[in-house]
């Protein structure tokens, strides 16, 4: 689970993403308890409130659920949900980043599509 935190990206987003990645990789499985916010805080040396913020984002999106007095658990179907969300984010962020870069290089959409078809290596 322990990966280094990047600079310049909100810590709670990183906590959210690391838990998601662990769910995708099967490090954390459905109906399993995830580490508590205090455990996460100590592991990553971050404020527990920040860890809680990351965890709560996952509760809000239905990837984790809370069992009162016990902790946070991975919801059934969580991995599938994460895949769908990441696909959407991929479209919204990576693709628009790609389009911006293409625009500043004067690459047309058709050229770009060709590049993607050829797996990134220009013929």
């Amino acid at each position, binding site marked *: 689970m322990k990966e280094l935190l990047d600079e310049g990206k*909100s810590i709670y987003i990183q906590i959210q993403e690391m838990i998601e990645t662990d769910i995708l990789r099967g490090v954390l499985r459905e109906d399993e308890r995830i580490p508590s916010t205090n455990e996460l*805080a*100590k592991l990553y*040396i971050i*404020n*527990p409130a*920040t860890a809680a913020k990351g965890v709560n984002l996952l509760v809000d999106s239905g990837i984790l659920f809370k069992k009162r007095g016990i902790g946070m658990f991975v919801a059934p179907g969580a991995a599938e949900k994460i895949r769908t969300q990441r696909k959407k984010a991929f479209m919204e962020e990576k693709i628009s980043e790609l389009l*911006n870069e293409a625009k500043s290089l004067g690459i047309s959409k058709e050229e770009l599509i060709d590049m993607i078809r050829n797996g990134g290596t220009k013929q």
Partner: protein
Amino acid sequence: MSKLVCKGVSKKYKDKLAVKNVDLTLESGKIYGLIGRNGAGKSTLLSLMSAQAPLTAGSVEIDGEPVWENQKSLNRICFSRELNVSGNNGIAGMKIKDYLKMAALYYPAWDAELAARLVDAFEIDIKKQIMKANKGMLSAVTITIALASKAEFTFLDEPVAGLDVIAREYFYKELLSEFSESGRCFVISTHIIEEAANVFEDVIILRNGEIIANENTQELIDRCKYVSGLEEAVNKATSGVETHHAEMIGRAKTVAAILRGGEHIEENEDVTVKPMSLQNIFVALCGEEVQQ
């Protein structure tokens, strides 16, 4: 939940106002970072809040009770100062062991077990005289006193200054476990901003004795961005937005933009928007006075 409230707090040394009209509320269950340049008034503010120095103006209260000359309030505060052995202040010749004993008597909620564990972990040689201890060991002693005091409001002034990176990491972990268990309020002043930024729930930035920022650390980071690109494009993208620390190289301009609620700067092919770290933000807000 307990609160320590400063209202209009000022401190004058001779002709100089070291702390100017500070309003500040500290809540239990939070870790605050106090950052500022040398001489910004950090230590002065901490000593005013812990009644170690008299106020020139204003008031400091815990849950409505004044702090000054009030044992009831003082029992709830610990200000573990940096140990200064250069002056002839009476403690320099004292053995660390005896200094810790004194602290144990002074703080009503002293946790002897925790103190012993920290002495062990930091490998503090308690038989040494304070003046003969190195900087790292002195930092470890001040940390031990702060954590073991169990005071509801605990202030640490540059606690990690003398520690190596392994001891610093150990300190932050111990701080976080003590914090999770007790929900005490901690205020930590530091110059090593980057590694501490994630530990602070709120950050207080002091400049020339005044508080210029006091908010949730992550929210502050989220709303501060570097905007760079062609000068005109950057000016257009940041028009109406608070900016600091503009730097120009040829036609290129970079500014630190501090966004208010609802403001947003869209990245496009002419303008790059990059996140800022707490240290970047600190430099942008407090470094302007040294800019040419």
